[in-house]
């Protein structure tokens, strides 16, 4: 909380100030949680806070209804909404499960809310919603869609055509039906306000001249991420008319760039002295990465995690000169050697993600990363606080070393590709390794565990992970005790997602009140039964307890007596608006 609030004023004294002054003080408090706390202090503060609240974050779109949102925060300008549960990313949630944007746009539009920003994650967005959005909010500035689906480039055309003050259109990893229309042409000639444009996930062809004209008339453009259909010479032209770019996403290059076009590209890149962030490279010959050498020392963010065609040694050659790198997303083809070089070169590194280039181990290659790379990074990068690491093997010793080297982890996600894999040297479980992580990293907020794990690791997590907010468990644990250790121990837990672990009704039902303090719980392929879920739903009417069936065609056709039937997928979440009405047939809400 801002120091202004910490002045020794009681609320009654503060109320001698006019509301505008109090409101002004509240402006210094952007954090959602602090704003929520302020609103609980007194009725008058609640009221002032309500009307001055411009940004709202809704982590689960079914926890509240659009109407109630608008009633409480009528001056809303910026809304963040999240829909499907996290495991939807891995095909564990049926496509039609829910998370529809339309009711929100509809309600906001009818209430004439002055919406300016909308950020969505895992929501189903339709062209109709985008059209309605584009027509309803005159001052609309920013649309960010992450992992959404349900719309086409026609919807983008509406946004382009109608949002006169659009600053940001950021499409990250969405499934968009590309009608190869002329959506880029729909930006009117008078549109000059763009600051950020990301359409990397579009699969179709791009109207290059429309894009070039748009970029040329957008002097404020700082971030541009193009899709595969933008070839090298077009990229050169784009960069030439936007040397002010800070963030660039590159499309597709020809396999052999002619020397002349390569020279031109390098010349354009040299002029982009403000460039700090680079991504894309999905179909790129290694030589083209070298065009960026002139500015690589300036880079703070590098995402080469889609650059499957760039071999490890080319990656290493490039990355070792990126001395200012804070964020690095890369494929495991970089290898342990490559990570050792990163560790010695990138001393400012804060976030590292190493993705599997061969997720299903089809090629049986030995160049993937191991515990050696992880240890090297932990030893070399003192500022590291977030890691996502896919690897084939791990040891307790390595994890203990990592914990000692890096006590500052906020996010630690380790995914050993083979489920239940033990320490590959001692053949023991990895309980001690993860135990060391949670014990050392007092600020740990997010944790994903993998490998062979018994109940003991959860005992450690419950004991030490005091700040833990999100925990992901797969193929781990022995008995209900494991889950209970976590539920009882982690006071700040908000999201718990579990798959293929032997936790059942006893754990699920032990402390029903706990779920009121959490956003959601996911359990799939565990031991909970229909009877257990029904009992939970009865005892906790403020929860939506959803059973997602394997048989997607009909509602649960099991008879009422079959309460011992195991539930395939359970998703429960707190809500103030009761059962949702838009659930598909494969979802039963108890």
């Amino acid at each position, binding site marked *: 909380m801002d120091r202004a609030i910490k002045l020794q004023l009681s609320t009654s004294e503060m109320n001698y100030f006019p509301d505008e002054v109090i409101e002004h003080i509240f402006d210094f408090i952007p954090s959602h949680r602090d704003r929520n706390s302020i609103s609980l202090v007194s009725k008058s503060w609640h009221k002032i806070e309500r009307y001055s609240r411009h940004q709202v974050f809704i982590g689960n779109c079914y926890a509240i209804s659009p109407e109630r949102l608008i009633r409480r925060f009528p001056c809303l300008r910026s809304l963040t909404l999240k829909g499907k549960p996290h*495991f939807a*990313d*891995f*095909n*564990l949630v049926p496509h039609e499960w829910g998370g529809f944007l339309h009711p929100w746009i509809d309600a906001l539009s009818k209430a004439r809310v002055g919406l300016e920003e909308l950020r969505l994650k895992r929501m189903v967005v339709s062209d109709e919603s985008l059209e309605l959005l584009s027509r309803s909010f005159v001052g609309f500035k920013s649309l960010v869609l992450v*992992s959404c689906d349900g719309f086409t480039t026609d919807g983008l055309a509406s946004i382009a055509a109608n949002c006169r003050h659009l600053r940001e259109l950021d499409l990250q*990893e*969405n*499934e968009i039906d590309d009608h190869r229309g002329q959506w880029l042409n729909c930006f009117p000639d008078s549109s000059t306000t763009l600051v950020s444009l990301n359409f990397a*996930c579009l699969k179709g062809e791009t109207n290059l001249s429309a894009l070039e004209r748009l970029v040329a008339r957008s002097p404020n453009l700082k971030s541009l991420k193009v899709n595969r259909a933008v070839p090298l010479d077009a990229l050169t032209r784009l960069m030439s008319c936007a040397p002010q770019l800070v963030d660039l996403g590159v499309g597709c290059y020809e396999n052999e760039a002619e020397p002349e076009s390569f020279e031109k590209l390098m010349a354009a890149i040299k002029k982009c002295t403000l460039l700090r962030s680079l991504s894309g490279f*999905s*179909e790129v010959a290694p030589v083209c990465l070298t065009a960026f050498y002139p500015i690589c020392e300036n880079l703070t963010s590098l995402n080469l*995690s*889609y650059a*499957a*065609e760039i071999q490890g040694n080319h990656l290493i050659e490039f990355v070792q000169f990126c001395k200012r790198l804070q964020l690095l997303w890369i*494929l495991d083809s970089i290898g342990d050697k490559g990570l050792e070089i990163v560790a010695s070169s990138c001393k400012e590194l804060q976030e590292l993600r190493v*993705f*599997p*280039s*061969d*997720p*299903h*181990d*089809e*090629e049986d290659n030995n160049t993937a990363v191991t515990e050696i790379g992880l240890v090297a990074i932990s030893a070399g990068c003192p500022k590291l606080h977030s890691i996502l690491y*896919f690897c084939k093997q791990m040891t307790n010793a390595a994890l203990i070393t990592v914990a000692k080297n890096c006590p500052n982890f906020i996010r630690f996600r380790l*995914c050993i*590709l*083979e*489920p*239940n894999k*033990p320490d590959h040297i001692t*053949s023991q*479980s990895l309980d001690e390794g993860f135990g060391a992580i949670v014990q050392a990293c007092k600020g740990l907020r997010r944790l*994903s565990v993998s490998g*062979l794990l018994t109940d003991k690791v959860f005992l450690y997590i419950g004991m030490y992970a005091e700040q833990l907010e999100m925990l*992901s468990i*797969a*193929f781990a644990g022995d008995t209900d005790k494991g889950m209970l250790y976590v539920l009882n121990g982690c006071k700040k837990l908000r999201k718990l997602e579990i*798959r*293929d*672990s*032997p936790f059942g009704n006893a754990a699920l039902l032990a402390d029903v009140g706990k779920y009121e303090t959490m956003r959601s719980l996911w359990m799939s*392929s*565990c*031991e909970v039964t229909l009877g257990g879920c029904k009992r939970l739903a009865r005892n906790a009417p403020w929860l939506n307890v959803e059973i997602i069936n394997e048989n997607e065609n009909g509602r649960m056709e099991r008879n009422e007596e079959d309460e011992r039937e*195991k539930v*395939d997928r359970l998703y429960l979440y707190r809500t103030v608006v009761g059962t949702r009405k838009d659930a598909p047939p494969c979802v039963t809400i108890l």
Partner: protein
Amino acid sequence: MDEFVNLKATELRLGLPGTNNVCEERVSCNSNNNKRALQADAENETETSPPRKTQIVGWPPVRSYRKNNVQTKKNESDGESQGIYVKVSMDGAPYLRKIDLSCYKGYSDLLKALELMFEFSVGEYSERDGYKGSDFVPTYEDKDGDWMLIGDVPWEMFECNCKRLRIMKGSEAKCLGSGV
């Protein structure tokens, strides 16, 4: 369900014949779902089962978008290549089609598919005379931008060099087909 049973039957393990996989009792959540792969039990360390490559739903936890968009470059020697989609136009047809060249084993495979798709038939191919006996001649545009007769070069070379196909018809075709 049957699929699951057969998998079990053909599973290679270094164990005494007739011994059950103990892990099925320990991790019972796997027992009644044919989607999940069997897992090596840590207690049976003395048996070294070969790594099983059956795929578990949603594992490893990589976003489907990422899985679909990171195309690993496979060795040429593997013989496997990514989908090679090329446009196919036919003189007189109202719209174009697209096919994946990697789905075909060779020229006869490809030509048969084209004949079906556009309902025509191509003549008989000979190295000297091209295609004889039909109004239609299959051609392709190569990387240099030249229009070539399909069938002259080895299949693999064709796959690498082909940018798109065109089924020529009529007099234009006759010129190309008979004298090149």
